[in-house]
């Protein structure tokens, strides 16, 4: 689940903490629930930034353990782009390299959406960044990894934003904007027809 996806800025760096825990472990769950105090959260972010920023260029992109992020099951996976750090916190069921590429997809998506993304885009459009992230990762699970698909979704929302901003008091157009917003259907049917799953015959679940 996405427990805290808040960026913080430290010096010239920004650090995105993304928690991707599948909250299977009660410990993690507790942590996710008890993220109530701002202090705790800030502490985690600070700690993470501290850990990540002091690492060289020629070391691996994974960081293990750490008591703050919930012990041995969780690890930090980060990528460093110029002055930006993108840090994901994942549990052991995620593939390390897979997440690294997910970060790459995220950054490329940001780049496309903002046209040459820079730090300021991230500061001044926090909400958009969050929305893009929400399209990729929902409730802690990777939802979409296809960049085109993400951009389609985000564009549809942006289109609505523009038309709404332009019309201010014209409800009729707003309605049509909403209607036009129907997402383009991409023909992407996969043929899994020969999966022979007979639903009624299967044993009932416990």
């Amino acid at each position: 689940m996405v427990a805290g996806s808040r960026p913080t800025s430290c010096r010239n760096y920004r650090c995105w903490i993304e928690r991707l825990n599948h909250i299977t472990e009660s410990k993690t769950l507790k942590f996710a629930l008890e993220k109530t105090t701002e202090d705790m959260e800030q502490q985690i972010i600070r700690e993470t930034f501290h850990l990540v920023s002091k690492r060289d260029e020629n070391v691996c992109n994974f960081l293990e353990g750490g008591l703050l992020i919930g012990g041995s099951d969780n690890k930090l996976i980060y990528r460093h782009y110029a002055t930006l750090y993108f840090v994901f916190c994942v549990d052991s069921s995620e593939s390390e390299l897979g997440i690294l590429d997910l970060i790459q997809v995220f950054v490329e998506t940001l780049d496309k959406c903002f046209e040459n993304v820079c730090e300021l885009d991230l500061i001044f459009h926090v909400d958009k960044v969050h929305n893009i992230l929400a399209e990729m990762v929902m409730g802690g699970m990777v939802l979409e990894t296809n960049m085109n698909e993400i951009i389609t979704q985000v564009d549809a929302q942006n289109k609505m934003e523009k038309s709404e901003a332009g019309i201010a008091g014209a409800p009729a157009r707003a309605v049509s904007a909403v209607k036009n917003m129907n997402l383009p259907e991409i023909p992407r049917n996969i043929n899994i027809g020969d999966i022979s799953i007979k639903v009624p015959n299967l044993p009932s679940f416990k």
Partner: protein
Amino acid sequence: MSDVVEKTLTALPGLLLSLDSQPGAAKLCATSRLGSLVRSITELTSKNVGEEMAEPPAGPLFHTEKPCHVRAIYCEMLGYEASFSYIHAIKLAQQGSVLEKRVGYLAVSLFLHESHDLLLLLVNTVLKDLQSTNLIEVCMALTVVSQIFPKDMIPAVLPLVEDKLTHSKEIIRRKAVLALYKFYLIAPNQVQHIHDKFRKALCDKDPGVMTASLHIYLKLIKESPESYKDLTDSFVTILKQVVGGKLPVDFNYHSVPAPWLQMQLLRILALLGKEDQRTSEMMYEVLDESLRRAEINHNITYAILYECLKTIYTIHPKSELLEKAAKCIGKFVLSPKINLKYLGLKALTYVVQQDPNLALQHQMTIIECLDHSDPIIKRETLELLYRITNGQNVSVIVEKMLDFLRLSKDEYTTIDLVGKVAELAEKYPFPYNSWFIQTMNAIFSIGGDVMQPDIPNNFLRLLAEGFDSDEEDRQLRLLAVDSYLSLLECDTSGLPQRFLQVISWVLGEFSFLKEGLEPADVVERLGKLLDDDAITTETRCWVLAAMSKLCGSSDALCKAEKVAHKYTSCLDTALRQQAVELELLGRDVDLRTRVLPQHVIGFCVWLQVDSSLSFLDGFVSDALARGAAPYKPPHQRQEELSQEKILNFEPYGLSLPVSLSACSLTDRQSPTALSLSSSLSGNSADPPLKAGSNLLKLEGVKRVWGKQGYLPEKQATEEALAQEPSSIFAPSHQQACSESQQTTFSTIVEQDQEKRQLASSLFVGLGSQNAPCLVRTVSQMSVKPTQKRSKTTSIHLTSAFAQNLSDSTSEAVPAVGNTEVVEASEVSSLSGGSGPLAQPSSQVERGLESDLPSRLPATLVGLLRSDVEELCSGESLSLSACKVFDADALVLAIFLSNISDSSIQEVSCLISSEQLKVPEMCSTFSVLSFYLNGLNPQLEGSVSCASQATQSFSLTLSLVDFIRPLPLTTEEYGKMWLSFSHDVKQNLMLLKHEEEDQLEAALTALKEKLCLHIVDVIGAEGIMACQLVSGRPCLLHCHTHGGMLAIWLRSPIADLPDCLLYHCQKAIQER
């Protein structure tokens, strides 16, 4: 926090200024209020002012305006509290336009956490949006539901989310599936009914929805792989199509088709194929294909490759695949890319237990990784070494680990590694005793006070209990004493508290072993420790305790008293008690000689623990006489507490049977009172627990009484402390592995030589021959060792059965109205045999009569058995079972009958029990523990055949099924009675007053219902005995008086009397 904020703030102006040159940014700052907020925040100097900034801006504008919320999000992000805006965010989500809603939802999901009260206000909004026709609104609602909805709010939205599974837009379906997955994670019970719909999602025509549903299946299969074996084929097919490039091109990532989907599928296959040859065979082909395809040199192909490797090494092994996989591991390990190297090490760690040769192949790489500049890589390498440790290389590996520990600053790593080093040091036969002591010293000084408390505890126990030979033990202790004495010579200020405690304990206990060492000397050195101000009170207690053990000679006593006197008026009670005890010992010579006999090796030789605490009986009876409340055991107190509760939040099924708890409150005497009466009956002190051995085993027994009296603070001291690690022992370690530890050589050749030497010392004993083999190029693949047996008890009758039944049909004799009786015996394991698990011996018989019991196999005829009960029946099959009480097992006979007119085919019957896992089943304790929790272990199973859908059934086992009579003579009974420590006594009402011989009747009832053996009847008293199938006895003593039956049960097992009492009570009532 404020320093971070300040750093942030000092950094930002420069950033903004530098951006003025960028036209776009300038525009941004000018137009956006957020820009001005950012600017103003950067001009602030303190956090307080920042908080003022975060105060609600004037005017009602805030409620509707979207940028305000973005500003609030920004403030929260920086760590300022913006709680005033929470309610407005909710309002915005509720009332705003679509666009504002989006910001509102975003703010809500960032601000609120799962247990926030304001979340309740959101439910209605979410419900409304879920029903909206606007896709974006539905998407937003689904997202927020999956992000922050807590358990108790799920029922409200569940039906609507469920509906969305059939929505026409795939994006909605996808999000709905993930939302349901989230629900499953936090409240699995609530989504039980929609498991079928997950299957539909898996077959969805959109690959995205299918991908989303894999998250659910991964989780479900992780929990119970058995139930989803039938889906293996589907997953394999999907993976085949994905790998084969059947997906549209826009699923490709760097020309790899849907890599994340592939990884997910591989993970699922690993879970399904684990320890299951048949399922594994289905996936060999596709795994091979995946390995072959993943050859493009890109990050993401390596990600797939890694998952593939893991799968191949998890499922039932196939030598070809393993060979290929081993090559792939080589690709990882030898890669110059550091990330791949990391994963390669991880993969090696994973497989090395099955195939140590792999580590041998890569030994030089591993050696290089040990010296890598990245601590994470080093750490992973050590983890790998830890897995390949054996008796020959243990000292080198431990040395490497300690080297790493000395440099590491990370607390988590330290705790973890110190634990591992301690484990290794204790596990392997020590090369020499001095090595062990030095290693432990290093652990204590490095691990300091962050390490697990059981490490020093175990060490002390090892020292105290010793090993096999007395001489070895003596030497070990002497070594410990020597090394600690020399430590105390030096500066002790840097030593962790835990280490000081260990030192003082060992010196107190064993310093007499060193000849020529005056106790007074030791006392003086220990006394110096106390002068240090940094030392904690707990450690002071340990030191004082050690001193009081050393007070044998008057000289030492004099010194000790001097030190102790200071603490007799100390504020800390534990410390004061220790000091006062010491003074008392000093005054009373008799006491001293009794408590502190001279020169006895190990305190535990003569120590006898009176586990029933009978010496307190006088005290207890006095207290009772003065009107004190009798002692209640913890579980009883728990019951009372739960009864006092006004509302019962627990499901009723979990609590103990009501009748039992009710009577235990009223009738049962307290165990203390019982132990009192037991002591009165001439059994004042329990015999030593282990009469045979002269050493008392202290595992599991909390030591409360020791040589110098009551020792609670000692136990407490070992709990937790904190201080800096020190490296005092660094030099002393050299000798353990000096050959490989030579300091730097000048030339490269020599360095290489050194590495090889290190390699040979590290990998010794790993290969087939013990000699180090350095230039090993031939990849000698060893086939994976046999897999462990499946852990759940499941009885696959499928193959044998199907064979037999199809045979019968091939004879082309339609068996009209035949009863096919198939006997399946199992369960030697259910009852504690360590023999093979569930050997299904099946036989098919035919007959027209339906007298099932007569079809029992000959070995079971004549034994006591329960009635045959029908478990389930369908159109063509009926299944019944009866329990046969064999002397040393509970045998479950299962009858399968064909009740249709035609022959049946492909019968399969599957029995499993979730609660009874095999390892636990070896002992009846597990069965007991179920009764304690009010649970009866259940066998669950399903039966199916070609003409009939699967039917499931369940069968409950009870404690009574495991009880057998225990034939005893009265004398034997008498002896056993005295030696058993756990007892329960209760009065039961006998309903039938008119009966002549109440006792006789009651005993007969018990005998019939519970299979007890009546040992003897003397007057109004009767004694009975029984045992659990594993041979654990329980004795009963019954006594009637005036319509009451007093039952007194005794057993060596703690909870058995309690459980049995419940069944006795039931038997009497049902009479």
